């Protein structure tokens, strides 16, 4: 026993692994998220919203009388590190793990949480994530399986485009989206005129834009991360691209609009969650966020905020902190804003952990996201 203690001390000295005990009755929530690297923009939004949600809940007495204690772990947007961070988070024996957002990271680390039986609520959208039969994993927003059919419908019925140029980022997120949307478009008899892969953190989109322009497509569907989206939009404007641009969520993100400036005007998108949604709850949340951090949250902020409130809603429904039954309770559960305003919109979770709720068609007008249509839940 003595030796074990000494070793623990030695390990402490070497690894600096201090597990601050914290308040004994606090609920530990581990937030494993992109705080540096390519995903820093999305991760920071998520983290700040999680902080905000935890603070608001704590101010009102916490969950079932217990305060929330959130610890953040930085995945550096790197799958390997995200796995290490989830392992590290699990060492702290959290009630729930939140994040990450990057699909390539989620794929690597979800196994760890599953093995430990700790529920995980992620911000990832790649289609495959909820197809792996992980019983303790939940999404906060639509997977590509849910959003791409909506986009494809809009392209067919709303814009009436016959051929589409697809520009996507070649990683798990982009490839997943590309594969899904191409399938959906073709199923609707819409031609993919040109199919262009780009790199993560690519900076120069001149070649892609020239190709899209000359492909004869009557619509462009970009599926990239925030910064790349902005660079693409600027290049599109520079080269005078005059066809409609319709994207999914990211493309009308506030950061994209800030970076792209004028070039973002006229861009349309399907957005699962939007800070500009015509809902008093969302407006309130956005105001609180702006008051706390001096900037507007993007949809990732909404996702993080909802994630924390999902934990609250499920726990309160169970009436106790029951990690084993967490997932079982949440599967098939509908959380209404009447019961839990923090989920922002009524939402239902299916047995795979995918949410279903209303979504929006938006357009950027004068540097602002405007909701044009509210789409009903899929109800499948």
């Amino acid at each position: 026993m003595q030796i074990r203690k000494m070793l623990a001390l030695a390990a402490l000295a070497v690894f600096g692994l201090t597990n601050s005990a914290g308040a004994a009755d606090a609920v530990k929530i581990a937030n494993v998220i992109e705080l540096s690297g390519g995903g820093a923009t999305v991760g920071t939004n998520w983290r700040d919203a999680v902080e905000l949600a935890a603070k608001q809940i704590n101010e009102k007495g916490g969950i079932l009388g217990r305060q929330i204690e959130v610890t953040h772990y930085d995945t550096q947007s790197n799958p390997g590190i995200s796995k290490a961070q989830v392992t590290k988070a699990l060492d702290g024996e959290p009630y729930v793990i939140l994040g990450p957002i990057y699909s390539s990271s989620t794929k690597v680390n979800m196994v760890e949480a599953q093995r430990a039986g700790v529920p995980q609520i992620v911000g990832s959208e790649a289609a495959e994530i909820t197809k792996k039969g992980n019983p303790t994993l939940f999404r906060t927003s639509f997977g590509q399986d849910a959003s791409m059919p909506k986009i494809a419908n809009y392209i067919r019925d709303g814009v009436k485009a016959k051929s589409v140029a697809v520009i996507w980022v070649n990683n798990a997120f982009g490839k997943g989206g590309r594969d899904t949307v191409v399938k959906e478009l073709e199923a609707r008899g819409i031609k993919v005129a040109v199919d262009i892969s780009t790199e993560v953190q690519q900076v120069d989109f001149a070649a892609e834009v020239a190709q899209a322009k000359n492909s004869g497509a009557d619509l462009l569907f970009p599926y990239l991360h925030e910064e790349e989206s902005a660079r693409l939009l600027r290049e599109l404007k520079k080269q005078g691209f005059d066809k409609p641009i319709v994207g999914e969520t990211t493309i009308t993100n506030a950061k994209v609009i800030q970076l792209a400036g004028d070039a973002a005007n006229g861009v349309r998108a399907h957005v699962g969650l939007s800070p500009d949604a015509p809902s008093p709850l969302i407006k309130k949340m956005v105001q609180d966020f702006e008051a706390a951090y001096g900037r507007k949250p993007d949809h990732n902020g909404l996702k993080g905020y909802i994630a924390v409130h999902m934990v609250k809603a499920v726990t309160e429904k169970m009436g106790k902190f029951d990690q084993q039954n967490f997932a079982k309770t949440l599967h098939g559960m509908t959380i209404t804003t009447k019961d839990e305003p923090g989920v922002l919109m009524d939402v239902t979770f299916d047995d795979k952990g995918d949410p279903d709720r209303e979504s929006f068609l938006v357009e950027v007008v004068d540097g602002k996201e405007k909701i044009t249509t509210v789409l009903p839940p899929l109800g499948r």
Partner: protein
Amino acid sequence: MAEFVQLLVSGLATGAIYALAAMGFTLLWQTSQTINFAQGEFVMLPAFIMLSAIKLFGLPLYAAFGVSLLVSALLLGFGFKRLLVDPMIRHGVLPLVIATIALGIFLKEGVKLVYGAEALPFPEALPQGIWRFASVSVTVNDIGVLLLVFAMVLALQGFLSRTTTGRAMQAVAQNPDTARILGIDVPRMITYTFLVNAALVSVAALLITPVYLAKFDNGESIGLIAFIAAIVGGFNQIRGALVGGLLIGVIDNLSGAYISAAYREAFPLLLLIAVILFRPQGLLGRAEERRV
């Protein structure tokens, strides 16, 4: 055809900016055997200096550019040479290479610490617009970049071959020992090349950041391309760096559009490897007498 011309022009324009960084890279190598693995970060930093000047003092872009020229000359020119290159060069090439890799990380992380990890918008340096000739359309920005870079190259070439200082710098680049015997103040000439490099990267930053957006890790791609351009063109030739930069810009665009977008990044690398193996002195370079 229209697409081809468009790709060519935009490739040339981006390539011209790469060429600026590549020329600075080449100059440093020639005069002081410095292989600057932080050259990409050297292009990244002036952009943030300009942004700061705009934000703190409310300067217009071109005044901010002037500020960044001064600060870059001080930090990336003088400071870099005195603090890193001078104490290290006696250890040989490799330790300096590693030190510049570390310097790159240092600059990147430093900028991240101060300005955050998110990209920031950067004002356009040149007028925007599109010129159409029949079915071909080219952007005013691209033409402006090309003109500006060519003017700079001509000015630099003129400076190096027409002025006493410039010729002294060239003498140092070709043979420091002979230059010393001729009474040239070699250390001072080396300092000048570091200052010229600082100016080149500042201009590159001014032109490329509107496209790249200001972000701490911009240097990663610019740095790599600058090496490739410098080596492909010829490590001991200013003209080589120019040709190398233009070539890489064009190849990047054309291969992405016509061969394979997924392997787009591979073509400049393949060219690099082929040049190193079959013509190590570069396309325009002179063979250096090595061995023994």
